C-alpha cells in the first residue's frame, strides 16, 4: 500500500500571537495522498480549520498569524522564501463553508472568474472550461440553459456547487473544503457528498467536517484533531472501528464533541 503522497505537512505550527492554533507538541505531520479524500475531524476549536488554511497559505491574510514548519506540495515547501502565494493558491484551491458565489456576476462569469484573472479571453476556451468545470461539480444539467443568469438566483446547494465549479475551473491539483455542507440542506449535502466520490479522480481532496458520519461516508483517510494537536491519523475504516488513541475513541463514540 505504498500510496503516493501529494502534499504533506512537516512540524507545522500556526500561532496567533502567543496562542498556538494548531501544532502543539512539536507540530503536525500529516500526509495527504494523491487522488484520495482525507477528512479532518474534531470538536469546535480543535485546530482542524486552522490546519486546513495553512495548506493554501490563507494565513498570509491574517497579520497576527505565524506559520512555522513546512508544507510540501510534490516535495516543494510552499512556505519557502520567494514562493508566491498566488501560485500556491492556483494549485491548491479552496471551498468555504458559506457558499460564496460572487453575487453580482452571472453563473458563467463566476466559473470563468479564475480563468479570466490570468488573461484567458478566448471565448471557445472559456466555454469549454466552464462546461467542464460545471460538469465536474454536477451542476451542468441544472444551469446549462441559464449560464448568463445571475448567480444569486441559485439555491444554497447550487451555489455551493457553483463555488466548487469555480475552484475546479482553474484545474487545481488539490481541493481544500472547509465544512462545505454545514449550511446546506440534507439533499444538497447528499449531492455534494456523491460528487466527492467522482471528484477525487481528478483532484486530491482534503475536507474539514464536524460531522463524523460524513467523514466516514466520503473519506479514505481521516485525521482527528483535539485542542490544537493532531491526535491520530489513519485509513478511515481503521480509525473509526479500531482507534488507537483513547481520545479518538471518546470522540467517535460521542462522549464529547
Amino acid at each position, binding site marked *: 500500500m505504498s500510496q503516493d503522497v501529494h502534499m504533506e505537512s512537516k512540524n507545522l505550527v500556526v500561532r496567533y500571537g502567543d496562542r498556538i492554533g494548531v501544532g502543539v507538541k512539536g507540530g503536525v505531520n500529516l500526509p495527504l495522498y494523491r487522488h484520495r479524500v482525507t477528512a479532518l475531524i474534531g470538536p469546535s476549536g480543535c485546530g482542524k480549520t486552522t490546519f486546513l488554511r495553512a495548506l493554501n497559505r490563507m494565513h498570509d*491574510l491574517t497579520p497576527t498569524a505565524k506559520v512555522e514548519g513546512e508544507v510540501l506540495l510534490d516535495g516543494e515547501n510552499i512556505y519557502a522564501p520567494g514562493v508566491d502565494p498566488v501560485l500556491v493558491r*492556483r494549485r491548491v484551491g479552496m471551498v*468555504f463553508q458559506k457558499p460564496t458565489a460572487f453575487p453580482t456576476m452571472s453563473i458563467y462569469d463566476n466559473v470563468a472568474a479564475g480563468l479570466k484573472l490570468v488573461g484567458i479571453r478566448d471565448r471557445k476556451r472559456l466555454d469549454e472550461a466552464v462546461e467542464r468545470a460545471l460538469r465536474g461539480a454536477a451542476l451542468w444539467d441544472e444551469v446549462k440553459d441559464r449560464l448568463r443568469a445571475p448567480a444569486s438566483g441559485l439555491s444554497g446547494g447550487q451555489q455551493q456547487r457553483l463555488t466548487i465549479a469555480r475552484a475546479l475551473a482553474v484545474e487545481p491539483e488539490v481541493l481544500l473544503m472547509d465544512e462545505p455542507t454545514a449550511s446546506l440542506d440534507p439533499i444538497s449535502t447528499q449531492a455534494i457528498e456523491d460528487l466527492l466520490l467522482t471528484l477525487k479522480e481528478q483532484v486530491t481532496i482534503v475536507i474539514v467536517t464536524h460531522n463524523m458520519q460524513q467523514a466516514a461516508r466520503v473519506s479514505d483517510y481521516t485525521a482527528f484533531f483535539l485542542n490544537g494537536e493532531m491526535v491520530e491519523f489513519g485509513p478511515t475504516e481503521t480509525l473509526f472501528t479500531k482507534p488507537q488513541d483513547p481520545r479518538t475513541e471518546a470522540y467517535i463514540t460521542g462522549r464529547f464533541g
Partner: protein
Amino acid sequence: MKRLYSHFGDRVFAAFLLLLGLGVVVLALLMAYELYRGGSLALNRFGLLGFALGREWDPVIQKTFGAWPYILGTVIVSLSSLFLSFFPALATAIFAAEYAPRWLAQGLNFLLDLMAAVPSVVYGLWGIFILAPWLRDHVQLPLYMWAAEHASWLVPFLGVPTGYGLMTAILILPSMIVPFTAALARDAIALVPREQREAAYALGATRWEVMRLAILPLARGGIVAGAFLALARAIGETMAVTMVIGNSHKLPYTLFGGAATMPSVIANEFTEAVEDLHLSALIAVGFLLFWVSMAVNFTAAWVLRRQERLVKGAV
C-alpha cells in the same frame, strides 16, 4: 402593540413624542410651501418654465428675472467638482478600509471628519486669498497668454483670467465634498463579508484583483450613494462658492470668467434686494434649489437602502 400603549402615561408620552417628532415633517412641508408662496410673485409673472429657463437676470433696468444662468452654474460647478472629487475619495476609502494599518486608518477617518466639519467660510477665505491669486498667476494667465498666441479660438472659452470665476469654484469644492463619498464608500467596503474576499484570494488573485473582483462590485451601492450625497453637498455649498466665483449675471460660458450658482446669487443679492419682485425672484430660486436638492438627496437615500439589502443577501 395595543398592550404597550394601554398604560395612560405611555399613551400621553407617545402622543407627545409624535407631536414633537412630526416637527421634522412639518419643517420640510413648511419649507416647500413657504418657498413657493414667497416666490409666487416671480413665478406667476414669468411662469415656472419661463423663470427656470429665462436667461436674463436684470434687477435694475429691465426687471426681468430668469434663473437659467444660476441653474447652469450650479450644474456645471457641482458636477465638475463631483468628478474631480470622486477618484481621491474612492482611493481614500479603499486605502482606509483595506490597506492601511489600523492606526493610520483611524487617523484618516478623523481627518475626513475634520474636512467635512471645516466651515464653508474658512475654505472660502483660503480660496480668496491663496487659491484664486495662485491660479491666476500660475495657471490662468500663462494659459491665456499661450492661447492668445497659439490657439486664439480657445480664448473666448477661457475668459478673463482674474482668478475669481468658475475654475476656482470648481477647484475649491472637491475638498469639501470628498468626505461624503469617502465615508460611505469606506463603510460599504468594510461591510463586504470576509468570505467573499477569501473566496477571491483562494482563486489565486492579487490584492488589487480581490478588490476589483469581490469587494468593489458589492460596495457599488454605497459608493454611488456616497457620490450622490457629495453631489447634494456640492449643490448646496454657498459661502466658499460665493467668495471665489466672481458673481456674474451672465451665462457661464467661460472657464476663468465669473459665474454664479443658485445659492451664491441668493447669498449675494438677498440683502440688497429692495423690490418685492427681486426678493420674490430670489426666493423662487430657493424654491428651485429646494427641489433639486430634494431629488438628489432622495436618490442617495434610495440607493443606500438598496445597497443594504444587497449586502444582506450576500451574507
